[in-house]
């Protein structure tokens, strides 16, 4: 397979060429997972079969997979967009939390609105919250050169503290019977439902993914974002406002994550509650890297991760395999797909330049 080179007229080969690394990474990760399962006394075939059944065994299971994929699409898009602009947005988690809690607040605190007003209003507030929170590392990066990796790591912790404070303090659910820290349930008018088995949130996510694909590949804004990501100096030379673009990219990234949080609150959980959105932002990194930053591929990689997460409990139930095996598989998958070099090294494949991911290195200042 190493001799394959893309030829202009064979699109199948082209597709294979662009998906072969992620594909092989997934296979390798599953093999690693199987080895771990095997040596710890489980039957990997049975485990994987149950995993598959848990994800796709029934319409209901599949619906859960879609539900689990939805926020991953959003956070994956958020991270991918950041990568496009040369930014490593580890802060999707924090932005998502803010979006989720603000949507939850708007969802319960405003009453008597028709749902065609309430739903978009709450979503919009979630988007704005995520966008504003994303703007912080953007502004810091543009004006003081503070590296976004370090600021977003720190902002994630601040977001956790902030949402914990809000859900145990001013916005706590004071209804009789409740004893834990959480926000009240959102009004029915703010809830997002399903069309048949398909959650509307998932449809929105897919549409947004296509929208982002269009923006990135077909608009001047996307051209600018790509340019800044690949070569900020040349972008400045070309008259692009690089600082504004960095901020804009992180705002859009934050908005996507915030929207993901809002959809989660309004479509799945029904309220904001600490702990219900754990890890989604970090999974977004895996999703984006697995998709090699392509917005369309983000949908596919989210479905893959969503299926693994959705099927995990069935696997645990019927195959008696601890859930953490999913973490191991996911970590290995991330390793293999990002360390394209690892896969190439294993399979001795040749290198192709444009498939690389450009991220700014280090976190020194300008």
């Amino acid at each position, binding site marked *: 397979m190493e001799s394959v080179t893309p030829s202009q007229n064979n699109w199948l080969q082209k597709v294979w060429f662009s998906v072969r690394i992620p594909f092989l990474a997934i296979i390798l990760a599953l093999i690693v997972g199987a080895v771990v399962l095997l040596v710890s006394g489980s039957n990997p075939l049975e485990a994987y079969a149950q995993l598959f059944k848990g994800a796709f065994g029934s319409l209901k299971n599949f619906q859960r997979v879609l539900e689990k994929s939805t926020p991953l699409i959003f956070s994956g898009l958020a991270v991918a967009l950041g990568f496009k602009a040369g930014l490593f947005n580890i802060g999707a988690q924090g932005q998502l939390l803010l979006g989720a809690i603000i949507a939850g607040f708007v969802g319960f605190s405003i009453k008597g609105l028709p749902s065609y007003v309430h739903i978009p209003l709450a979503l919009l507030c979630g988007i704005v919250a995520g966008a504003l929170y994303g703007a912080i590392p953007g502004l810091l990066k543009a004006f*003081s050169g503070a590296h976004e990796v370090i600021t977003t790591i720190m902002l994630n912790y601040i977001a956790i*503290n902030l949402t914990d*404070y809000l859900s145990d303090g001013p916005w706590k659910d004071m209804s009789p019977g409740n004893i834990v820290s959480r926000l009240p349930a959102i009004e029915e008018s703010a809830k997002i439902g399903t069309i048949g088995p398909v959650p509307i949130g998932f449809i929105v996510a897919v549409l947004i993914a296509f929208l982002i694909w269009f923006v990135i590949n077909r608009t001047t804004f996307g051209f600018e974002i790509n340019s800044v990501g690949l070569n900020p100096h040349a972008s400045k030379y070309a008259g692009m406002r690089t600082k504004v673009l960095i901020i804009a990219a992180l705002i859009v990234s934050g908005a996507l994550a915030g929207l993901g949080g809002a959809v989660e609150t309004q479509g799945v959980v029904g309220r904001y509650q600490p702990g219900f959105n754990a890890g989604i932002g970090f999974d977004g990194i895996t999703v984006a890297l697995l998709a090699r930053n392509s917005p369309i591929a983000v949908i596919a990689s989210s479905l893959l991760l969503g299926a693994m997460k959705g099927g995990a409990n069935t696997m645990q139930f019927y195959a008696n395999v601890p859930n953490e095996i999913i973490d191991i598989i996911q*970590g290995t998958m991330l390793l293999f797909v990002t360390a394209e070099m690892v896969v190439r090294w294993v399979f001795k494949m040749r290198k192709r330049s444009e498939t690389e991911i450009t991220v700014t290195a280090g976190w020194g200042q300008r």
Partner: protein
Amino acid sequence: MISETVKRGPFSHINWKLWRSVILALLILAAILFFNARNPAETRAVLRSTLRYAVPLILGALCGIFCERAGIVNIGIEGQMLLSAFTSYMTNAWTGNLMFSLFVGMVTGSIVGLFLAFLSIKLKLNQVIGGTVINILAAGITGYFYQVGTTTKGKFASIPLGPLADIPIIGPLLFNNPPITYIAIVLVIVSQIVLFNTRWGLRTRAVGEHPRAADTLGVDVFKIRYLNVLIGGVMAGLAGAFLTLEGVGLFERGMTNGRGFIALAVMIFGKWNPISSAMAALFFGFANAMQTQLQFMGIQIAHQFVGMIPYLLTIIVVSGFVGRSRAPAAEGIPYEKE
């Protein structure tokens, strides 16, 4: 091109930095003495708690310093600590030999370090992603393999250093500690000397700033990087072992609870300098001990805001609002021999 200095103040010859630290040190000393006179037990408790909270942060930050001074970004400290905490605990549970368990913890940290080094040096993987992979894998592996119900025969106890331990205030604080704490204190000083006063340190810093320059002088960039990440791994291993062998004597899933990331903050706060980072760790430790002490005294403050302090401070420092800190220039960039 230098032509002339535009402005230079009349006091520019005074070393403000030095004076600032001297004054700060005197103020801290005065405060300690004041509180010690009022309530010796509480003061001692807070100070010792400060040190204890700081130890894993110091060790984690030293890991970061060695890696990053050599040009390798390490955000996988959290994962390194967690894995080392896990293996040293399991070893302790099986063998009951604390020293051997400590050794296993250090070896684990260094193996994970080697893994990161392999990814970033050999495979030229983006180092931030490499660290992320380590964190995810560490959580998965420890969660999957942790056996509940194992118990250990004990943990490291304090070793008073003879008459030194009887010195008022600093005696119990500095000279009556368990071994890893001593090791951490010694390592801070040793690291400072190694980095700034030895051949190894000079080469390490050169490799982190301008690897090609070092290479042209016959310095083996890859070797320096590998070994520093390895040394860093030992430090992270110590930090992890501290949690299970000296701190609690117990392992729990995810028990590092973000200490690896705070260590990163500490490193930046301390400007990639061992002694300054130790000071920063002590400061964070003090904030934590004070938060506990205030609760003991019945003063309730929204603890979430106290919890934010280290993170907010790090953002402020990294943004250059107060005391700008500059990372090693070649950090995060894989070195390629042409």
